């Protein structure tokens, strides 16, 4: 059954927009530049579109992988090894299990 308020919402009048608003819109807006229908495809724009289409979870995972990769490269470039670098060992879970084999 339809409720009374639903009918009342349906009955709300369409309001007349002020004439000045219409005048402003049709005077000002058409002078603005339009977006081009076909954008130039650059790696950046493709990547941005891909990222915006992705689910947040997947974005987060990829960002996580990227962070680990950057850290790995950064640590690797310092010549640190798990044996000499506690932070690196903790980060990559390299806590000396191979010594037990």
């Amino acid at each position, binding site marked *: 059954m339809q*409720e*009374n*308020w*639903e009918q*009342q*919402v*349906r*009955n*709300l*009048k*369409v*309001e*007349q*927009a*002020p004439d000045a*608003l*219409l005048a*402003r*819109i*049709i005077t*000002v*807006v*058409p002078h*603005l*530049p*339009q*977006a*081009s*229908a076909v954008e130039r495809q650059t790696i950046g724009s493709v990547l941005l579109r891909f990222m915006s289409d992705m689910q947040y979870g997947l974005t987060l995972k990829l960002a996580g992988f990227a962070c680990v990769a950057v850290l790995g490269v950064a640590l690797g470039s310092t010549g640190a090894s798990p044996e000499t670098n506690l932070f690196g060992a903790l980060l990559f879970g390299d806590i000396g299990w191979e010594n037990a084999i």
Partner: protein
Amino acid sequence: MDAKEPKDEELMARIAQADRHAFDILAKRHLNRVYSIARVMVKKQADAEDVAQDVFTRLWIYGPKWQDGKSAFTTWLYRIVVNCCNDHLRKNKNSGMEVPEDLPSGDANGEAILLQRQTESKVRAALQSLPERQRIAVTLTYFQGMTNPEAASAMDMHIKALEGLLVRARKTMRGMLEEERAEDARKLGTAG
């Protein structure tokens, strides 16, 4: 709409070619509707005007990107309206409620008009106190008369999510209007 008048889709194709005259026709055709939805969604008249202008600005700018057949023009337009309202509400979270204008009195059927405007004013106030997404769902479905799939598409959500919003909105609205009615009855009792 007159049979001779160009369809929205034809006008959009012309707008994509930067045809200002086509834009004028489309703006005149849809402005009142867009403005009315904005009036329900945002609280102040000036804000509703800003939203309406923003909607038509985006329509012009992104006109060339609109693809006929991908979605109905009105669905696309109302999606822009929803986005503009959302953006506006996000920017102006703490803006206050507009004081309603004075109601007319003294004419022949003044009492009936007064009553109707009071009811309308209460419904608008109740709508405006709904949470943002519920308000948008109710406005599109009941005020704009869109079907659930159309409204869901305009809000860019699954139909089940929209139905959930409508269920919660119904509950909230019922509660608010019942409270209002009880308040009125209490006032009448006190006055009598």
